[in-house]
């Protein structure tokens, strides 16, 4: 294993090197929250962030993007529009990296999604291990999706002392970047310090979730009274799915220019929490009730929808934090667990 040691200045150097080839995105404070945004000034990066509003998966799977462009002349013509962007995404937590790894598999199943891959395959991920829960909303430890990660990164940072990071390399691209930055090799006591940190980081979590037994549509889950109770509070706003790192559902529509001659086919993130999501012809709708929609979303996060494990929860805590009705997947799942 290639391991190096770096302080904050060294990381600044790594970002500078990254900026020659990539648009560098990192957690930056905005208002009272954090966002992965393009780094203009490295001093704005806050590696002590709890979580960003939108997960980094949405840098690959864009909330809105153009799929193709068309001309509405005689017959019509169309061209692919592929927005490629090479990104270095800096400071990705284990939960969010696990979500990226799931979407990598999701978007390369029977078919490949060229739009997701155009960005994913041209990007590097600099992951950041957490030394414990970032706040009371985190529950990755109970799902095995954090707080540390061992795979899927190009570069992995672990803060082993205040302001001092163990830098591990997970890919050729990652190795080249680190070589260019000329980081010092880590001595064995730093590697040992990281091991100790990784083994103790799981302690201290106060929020837990256990989805075992909830991922298959069994009657005990589907017919449970918890759905009626929680759906009574749900506003069907779609926040949960918007901020969820493994939510990818989208709607496709055509947008025509004012001249009625040119247009675009675009896709936008959609949400199963919205009424129109399960609509079919003639106003048919298979999830007309809020209860059915909330249940669908949450069972999806248990791994029980068509995306299976690939759309399931990674324990980032966003949906709980951003739910205006404070609907909590961890408390619902524990009530359901009592029934199965």
């Amino acid at each position, binding site marked *: 294993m290639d391991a190096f040691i770096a302080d904050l200045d060294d990381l600044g150097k790594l970002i500078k090197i990254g900026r020659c080839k990539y648009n560098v995105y990192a957690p930056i404070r905005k208002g009272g929250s954090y966002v992965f945004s393009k780094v203009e000034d490295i001093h704005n990066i806050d590696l002590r962030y709890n979580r960003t509003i939108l997960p980094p998966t949405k840098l690959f799977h864009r909330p809105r993007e153009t*799929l*193709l462009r*068309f001309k*509405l002349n005689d*017959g*019509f013509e*169309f061209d*692919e529009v*592929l927005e490629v962007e090479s990104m270095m995404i800096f400071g990705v937590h284990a939960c969010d990296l696990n979500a990226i790894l799931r979407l990598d598999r*999701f*978007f390369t*199943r*029977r*078919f*490949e*999604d*060229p*739009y997701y891959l155009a960005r994913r395959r041209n990007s590097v991920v600099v992951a950041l291990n957490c030394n414990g829960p970032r706040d009371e909303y985190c529950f990755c430890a109970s799902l095995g999706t954090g707080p540390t990660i061992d795979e899927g990164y190009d570069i992995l940072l672990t803060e082993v002392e205040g302001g001092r990071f163990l830098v591990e390399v997970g890919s050729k691209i990652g190795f080249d970047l680190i070589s260019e930055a000329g980081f010092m090799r880590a001595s064995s006591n730093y590697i040992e310090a990281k091991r100790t940190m990784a083994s103790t980081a799981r302690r201290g979590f106060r929020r837990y979730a256990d989805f075992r037994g909830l991922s*298959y*549509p069994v009657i005990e889950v*589907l017919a449970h009274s918890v759905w009626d109770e929680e759906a009574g509070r749900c506003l069907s706003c779609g926040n949960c799915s918007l901020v969820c790192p493994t939510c*990818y*559902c*989208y*709607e*496709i*529509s*055509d947008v*025509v220019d004012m001249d*009625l001659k040119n*247009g675009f*086919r675009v*896709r936008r993130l*959609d949400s*199963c929490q919205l009424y129109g*999501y*399960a*609509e*079919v*012809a*003639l106003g*048919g709708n*298979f*999830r007309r009730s809020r209860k*059915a929609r909330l*249940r*669908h979303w949450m*069972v999806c996060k248990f791994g*029980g*929808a*068509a*995306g*299976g494990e690939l759309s399931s929860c990674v324990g980032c805590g966003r949906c709980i934090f951003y739910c205006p009705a404070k609907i909590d997947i961890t408390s619902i799942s524990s009530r359901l667990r009592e029934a199965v």
Partner: protein
Amino acid sequence: MNPYIPVKARVVSVRTETTDVKTFRFKLIEGRLKFEAGQFVEVSVFGVGEAPISISSDPDIDDYFELSVRRVGNVTGSLFKLNEGAIVGIRGPYGRGWPIRESEGMDVLVVGGGCGAAPLRPAILKLLRNRNRYGRLEILYGARTPYDIMYRGEFEKVAEGNDCRVLLTVDTIPPNSEWRYSVGVVTRLFDKISVDPRRSVAFICGPEVMMMYAVRDLIRLGFKPENIYLSMERRMRCGLGFCGHCQIGRKYVCLDGPVFSYSEIAPMPDKIV
């Protein structure tokens, strides 16, 4: 290969089936569309959008393909205005069709309702072409009124032969119209069937409420749930297993279906059948 990019197809002919259903025959500008009975395509009318439509023509003919379209929304409304020579975009074919091969040696009962006849037609044509590989073959088809019966001429022609029994029914007969077949919902025809439920498969497509009653009655008659096949309607936006709209529980209708055995789909939530 970008799976979102359609290929162009030209309308070569248009037939009016009923008051709100037309059958369009298309030819791809380049290449041929090979498909299986029960599969669907995504049809683009640029500037309006894309819609999933079942292929309704003979799967052994790849020179052209046909889509029977009911006018229900934006895309189908625009398709309805198209004449010979018009160009549309096509992606696909997508999905898993009817178990034609797997059903060899069995009796086959086909049950259709309304424009559910469209995805059944390629299966019927295929079964008739290989008629000697199957036991008894019966087709039950119902629509709202005599004016809503699709492929009526073809059904009547098939019924004239000895290969296949065809029973037609309508819910109501409007005043001053003629109808020499049955009246009542399609499941009322189950009293008249002669296939052997224990060694039969059923291919069903129609409104989901109709399919629910059909499944219930067929199981009562002794059909095995795993031998009852349904073509499910959901809004398959992408056809690629990504966009999420067609999910029924753990199934993607666009990838795992649209044809499912009842035993596969029965445990899933958010459906009527």
